[in-house]
């Protein structure tokens, strides 16, 4: 796999049926359709862990991850965030606690900024911030849960935002509203690389 500095993601997986290569240019928006859920889970997990399994090669922001030491890998991970079933909400925390957990734990960004951003995003989707943020994840509809995850992702302000299976589990009425996620992401993370990932199994 050739290293291309302009690529935010360069992923190669060798399988018995041939090679799977995914490349995403830095700062742009890419859509990746994978053959099945297993391939999708492997790809998203490799990105989130900044680590590749045997048979995989991964470069993030032009840096091969295979030989990275622990701290360097952790630094790289901090530049990536995902809206994915793999990174679901914590069920015993309300939406605000879920959204602000990482910011409160790491001490950055300031919670006031997160609260303001959450209010803006929620109002764009027609929700009142205070009651929505006080709800527990188990009481959220699929789109609402994804919205909470979107706010959490935006709060992390990543350089690489992975949106995994956005339409999965949504009703026919919710799907058009999910399209708004893309514009919110683009507007609030203008410099970031956006990677929308889904599988053909979901589409069918």
């Amino acid at each position, binding site marked *: 796999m050739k290293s291309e500095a302009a690529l935010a993601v360069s992923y190669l997986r060798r399988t018995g049926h041939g090679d799977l290569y995914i490349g995403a240019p830095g700062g742009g928006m890419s859509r990746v359709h994978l053959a099945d859920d297993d391939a999708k889970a492997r790809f998203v997990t490799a990105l989130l862990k900044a680590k590749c399994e045997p048979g995989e090669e991964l470069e993030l922001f032009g840096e091969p991850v295979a030989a990275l030491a622990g701290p360097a890998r952790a630094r790289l991970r901090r530049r990536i965030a995902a809206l994915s079933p*793999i*990174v679901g909400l*914590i069920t015993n925390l309300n939406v605000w606690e879920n959204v602000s*957990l990482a910011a409160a*734990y790491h001490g950055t960004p300031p919670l006031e900024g997160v609260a303001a951003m959450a209010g803006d995003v929620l109002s764009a989707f027609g929700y009142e911030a205070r009651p929505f943020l006080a709800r527990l994840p188990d009481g959220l509809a699929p789109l609402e849960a994804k919205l909470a995850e979107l706010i959490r992702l935006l709060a*992390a302000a990543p350089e690489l935002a992975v949106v995994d299976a956005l339409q999965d589990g949504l009703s026919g009425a919710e799907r058009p509203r999910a399209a708004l996620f893309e514009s919110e992401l683009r507007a609030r993370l203008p410099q970031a690389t956006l990677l929308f990932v889904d599988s053909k199994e979901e589409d069918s």
Partner: protein
Amino acid sequence: MLQSLREIEGGVRLSLAFAARLGQLRRAPVLDSFLRQVYFTGVTASTGVVLRASALGVLIIAITMDVLDADVDLAVKILLLVVFREIGPLAAAVVVILRSGTAMSAEMAMMRVSGQTRALRYLGIDLYDYLVVPRVAAAMLATLVLTVYVQCLAVLGGLALSPFIINASFTELTGRLFELFTPVDFFYSTVKAVLFGFAIAACCCYHGLNPPEVTQNAVPKVVTRAVTQSAMLVLTINAVFAYVVFGILFFGLVTAKV
């Protein structure tokens, strides 16, 4: 055998990690989690269950005094040696195991099975910092406070009940209690209560984070293991502590003469 060794190793690692990360309590979400756990383990337990545990202490005093035909001295010694030093910490530990140990292990096993611990890792949040440290620290504090609470209620109950069983007034018994009470009684039960809290929470956290399989079926297994092993740990600590403090420290090595 191998599994037992693994569990001991895991428990020791978890304990060392807890000691090394105690400073993480300064972080806001960790402190929130700590306060929440103190509330669930300590405050909510302080009404029904602990009152019943204290009543059990009073009952034991009443029966023992009646059976032994106790005088003032013996009555107060029973209160101090049995109720204050032994029953208080043990009753608090039983309450913590039954109410919080079960909840802690089930909650963590559920988080592990449903992938929520993985989500925390991807958010850059250390599981020890966020899940283990606040729970263990809170269980230590809550067990200590519950122990003092049970001790006070049981001893007061015993003092109030004793005049009906033996020929002594409440004032006489109280006066004798203060004469016989030594700082050792206090430190002995305090240190033991803190150790009980630590052992219970560390054991439950360890099992919660290490289920035998990553399926829903593992949750009841985790809870059973956590509760059984916490109870065994508490009894072992109690026995070792009693032997070390009263066997070696005060009387030298205890030997049996036939």
